[in-house]
């Protein structure tokens, strides 16, 4: 009786696992963003995840079925003595080589994604004066408990990383300031520099599969290309204090980013008289000293 119980016990788990996997899309147990990342890199990260999930599923079901089979067979066999496999050289070699091979495969397979995610841009960085694509640069400063954002003056095109560094170092005339809401390009690369005003925070946009710690004293670059328009939740993913949960922000991808930044700038330049958006006061020579 108890033999049959244990056979069933070990057979039931792989069945449950398969059932859960099969119904999970219908139950919306999936990645944020309707199961599809809003960045091309995020989609590749998801693919990697699914690949690993597949390998694990095969291994899990395989071992469970084998275990159930062995138990079942053993339960029928009253006479034969068990085979004690400890110390079997061949077996040791097999279960070392097979996982090592799988691991090596994953390591090689993911290398490209990781390179795009964290490395390739740094290589470009070495040629600091070389030409680079112009894309949005913003400085995002995490602080207890909000995201303070600074964009360069609308229309600014940085040609080199050196110029970006100079911009990051101090405030500049025409900078646009914002809080808790980051506008980014749609279908174009965005580069942000992440800082912390106090303790450690983490810039986490689940829909974009972007997560990066913000470290005090460091300016960390993060880049991504959003290819779906819309608004995405921005949260802090590093327990940063009692108000951690308050760090709710939003990333919005827009078609014409420069126009949006000009709107923000017009509001920021509001002087109480000239309606924002109408002819900004152009600096000119004054008649009277």
């Amino acid at each position, binding site marked *: 009786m108890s033999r049959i119980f244990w056979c069933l016990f070990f057979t039931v788990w792989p069945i449950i696992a398969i059932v859960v996997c099969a119904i999970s899309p219908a139950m919306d147990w999936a990645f944020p963003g309707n199961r599809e990342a809003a960045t091309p890199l995020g989609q590749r990260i998801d693919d990697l995840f699914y690949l690993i999930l597949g390998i694990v599923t095969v291994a899990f079901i395989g071992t469970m079925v084998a275990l159930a089979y062995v138990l079942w067979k053993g339960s029928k066999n009253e006479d034969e003595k068990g085979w004690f496999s400890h110390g079997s050289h061949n077996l040791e070699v097999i279960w070392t080589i097979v996982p090592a091979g799988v691991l090596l495969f994953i390591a090689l397979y993911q290398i490209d994604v990781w390179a795009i995610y964290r490395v390739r841009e740094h290589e470009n960085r070495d040629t600091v004066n070389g030409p680079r694509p112009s894309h949005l640069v913003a400085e995002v400063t995490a602080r207890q408990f909000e995201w303070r954002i600074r964009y360069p003056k609308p229309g600014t095109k940085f040609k080199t990383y050196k110029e970006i560094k100079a911009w990051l170092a101090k405030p*500049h*005339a025409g900078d646009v300031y914002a809080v808790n809401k980051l506008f980014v390009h749609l279908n174009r690369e965005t580069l942000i520099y992440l800082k912390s005003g106090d303790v450690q925070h983490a810039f986490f946009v689940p829909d974009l599969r972007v997560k990066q710690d913000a470290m005090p004293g460091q300016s960390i670059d993060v880049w991504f290309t959003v290819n779906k328009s819309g608004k995405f939740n921005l949260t802090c993913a590093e327990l940063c204090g009692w108000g951690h949960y308050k760090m709710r922000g939003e990333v919005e991808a827009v078609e014409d980013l420069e126009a949006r930044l000009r709107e923000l700038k017009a509001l*920021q330049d509001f002087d109480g008289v000239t309606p924002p958006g109408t002819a900004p006061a152009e600096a000119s*020579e*004054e008649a009277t000293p």
Partner: protein
Amino acid sequence: MTTRRLIIPLLASLPLVVGCADYQAEFVNDERVATLATTSPDAASNLKNSLDAHFGTPNALVAWGALPIDFGEIGGTVISANGNSLRVSLETEPPDGLSNVAVVVETETPQNRTAGSYNADTRTLTLLEQEAAPAIAPGTSLRLIGHKLQAGRRLYMQHCMHCHGVTGDGNGPTARYIRNHRFNPLPRDYRRGLFKFTSTKIGFYASRDDLRRTVTQGLAGTYMPSFLLLKTDELDAIVEFIRFLAMRGEVERRLLDHLQPLMPSDDGTPPSDLADLEKELAVDTFNQAFADAASLVAEKWVNAEDPDNRVIPTTPRPPDTGKSRIRGRSLFVDTKINCAKCHGEGGRGNGAVLKDRQKIPGTDDKYPTPGLRDDWHKMIQPRNLTSGIFRGGRRPLDVFRRVTAGIKATPMGGFETNLTESERWDIVNYVLSIPIDGAFIDEHGHQYHGGDRSHAHHDHDKPADKPADKPADKPKTTQPKSAKDKK
């Protein structure tokens, strides 16, 4: 043995059960109420009861019509009535979970009832039992009052309470982390009606728009974060509730001033003619004093909404030229208004005044230590204008308002009378340029950081940054610095 196995886990899980017990929030009374109770317990309880009657408790708020607050009102008519359960047609759909709001039923003599619940599907409003309430006929009109205040309370408890406290006294559970810091501003104590960053003139309270702006934008550089992603109706509800708490606190404070003669003297002895005073202040004139306090407070908050009491410049901001900045700089260090006295020659917030001991307001004594204090006696620092952080906002309009009306409840005064509007705009142009180009302006009109930190001189020494042959009033806003760096 078996019993012990059961009892220990049960005991262990007891804290969980107790911890989840229904927590009843309460408004905390001013400290002076406890002092008052030592000499005149009757007056103290009279005060508490009156406050509860007109403002309620956090879980049973009262929408007192004497206050200029949008409590949230929904009109409607009764379609059919079955005792306390009414089928109604309401003008707008009330929020989910409506309960405990006031209902005014316009029967022949209007009834003040309380709604127990509302079922949106059947459109049934259930009133709480009330003795000897006359029957309600179909067709009677009614008004639900208070859902917005309740929503505000709910949101306030989620987002604001842990710093600002249930009562709005700036003493919530997390306030202590801020209190321990010498210069961090404390969470605002609403009970005096004082809010620092407003659009209103000197002596006026904050308007709804001011509070909205502070909640959505936060106060940069302080612990007040931005709540930008609140929905408009949520924001409005929170602002109404903050105004409600401010009014409650101020009415309480003014009543305590009225009852001040009943307070014990410093050594704890009650006043000699306590019985007479008690009868006069706590019985005969108390209700009148309560009504007076409420109408005075209401008037102040109404006035804050009046557009005539807003600081709005009549002329647009003049172009941000070198000449304008130089005029601003000369006013900054001028003895007439002397910004540099507090903000320092280099704008770093380290003026000479910080070395002096300040007078305690309302007394002849001085504080024991030097430094500036706000009206809550908390040490504060003049703004470091080089930091690029503008707590009340960085729009030219914001800075203009700071220069014109000052920062309420702080030593930062307003200069509406001392300066003309164009002088104030010059200061605005100059102040906004400080974080970027530096506070000092040399004889050629070049701006540089310096004075307080020796390494800051480098900015000025770098010839590439600002060539000497450039005209002094070359507009600086039109060109990002990064572009200049390369030249």
